[in-house]
């Protein structure tokens, strides 16, 4: 699975971190970090993360 976050849109709300903590996290300054090629078994939670992103900045490309 390939995940892309539009960092021009991202405003560090962190909702994706709650939905998919295996893929998304925040650094100490509260800036988003993420795994761009997570395991297929995480698809449901990554879709959830994309749904709850207030800026709709997360795309699942494959």
């Amino acid at each position: 699975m390939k995940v892309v976050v539009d960092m021009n849109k991202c405003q560090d709300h962190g909702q994706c971190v709650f939905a998919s903590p295996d893929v998304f996290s925040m650094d100490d300054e509260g800036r988003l970090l993420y795994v761009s090629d997570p395991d297929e078994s995480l698809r449901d939670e990554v879709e959830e993360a994309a749904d709850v992103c207030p800026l709709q900045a997360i795309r699942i490309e494959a």
Partner: protein
Amino acid sequence: MPAAPSPVPVTGRVVVAGASMGGLRAAEQLRAAGWTGAITVVGDEPHMPYNRPPLSKEVLAGKASFDSLAFTPKAAAADVEWRLGSPVAAARLAERTLDLADGSTLAFDGLVVATGMRPRRLGCPGPTEGRHTVRTLADAQALRDALTRPGVRVVVIGAGFIGCEVAATAVGLGVREVTVVDPLPLPMVGPLGEAPARALLRRHEERGVRFALGTGVAGFEGVGGAEGGEDRVTGVVLSDGRVLPADVVVESVGSVANTEWLDGNRLDLTDGALTDEQLRVGGLPYVVAVGDVARFPNARYDGVPRRVEHWSIPTDTAKHAAKVLTAQLAGFEVCLPAFAPLPTFWSDQHDFRLQSFGAPALGKGDVRVLDGDPDGDRDGDVLFGYHRGGHLVGVVALGGQAAAMGAAKYRAQLLKQPALTA
């Protein structure tokens, strides 16, 4: 041996009434729940579903185009039929039939009520030109055009989420006179309670927003319309007698549920469509409601049905309601736990953010400062905790990213809290 019946009928149609975020999420979640029949989404706006929070902020500020707001529907929902620009006019639920405004009828097996809200308008008579609301893309574009004319004076009526965000955006655009009017003594005091609302007021005033609080609006002044009437607004008459000069008026005085189309079906439509704990409407197994039009009991709290206008609610309700509807259309009993979302909201104003988890409005009577000093130095981050019966029921952070992260640390605790009883 006869083949086992398919658990879900492959024929049949679910109609989703409402083509905004709740309607889109409902369609996607029906597919995720296993509904293989047809899905038709009917909506009044001509646009595909788009994200509304930027309307009072980035769109007004000229920083976001429509393309950047449009949701990208999930691939599984690619075969959904969209009937846009033709709102539902009436429903005959017993016959499972809808009448659309364009004169056509639409039969359904299952129905999702997702028609949302529209802005409440002030009843006072007077000029209409120059008076704005912010709910749709067209509203936001019209208001942006008005705000970017040189030298305009702006009066925002209503100091809630939309009013505070619009006032902040207007100041950011360089509008010199922005005044917010509200009959309550503090901005956003309804959702936030007194101490946080006081801190919010001070931040707005420091950034140039003026307030006329504790007073309502008695009427409008205006000048010369095409017919010689008072068509264009020039001022807002307050109930304390003052007149605020205004070229642009924004009415942000709450919203009204779009449920008229459901009249005549013996439903409780007092304030939105009343649902049970599984988001079913009117005790019917084939009708559910999603989004801010749904007045649902939250099993996490006191069981009192409420509408919730937070951005997170369309997604939360759609996920649950789609499972319920799909199961029932297939002839199964619903064996899901009662719907019990953890609410969350945010509001970006000026250079700060309000970030909430839980239900602060239920704990307004016992607000404690968990971190920071609300009366201290300008711009310090503050975290408020809201309690009911001694238990934490919500948190609100006011400030920058560190404050929001502080609030997020309480989310797990709020999720684990035992349910409140009424």
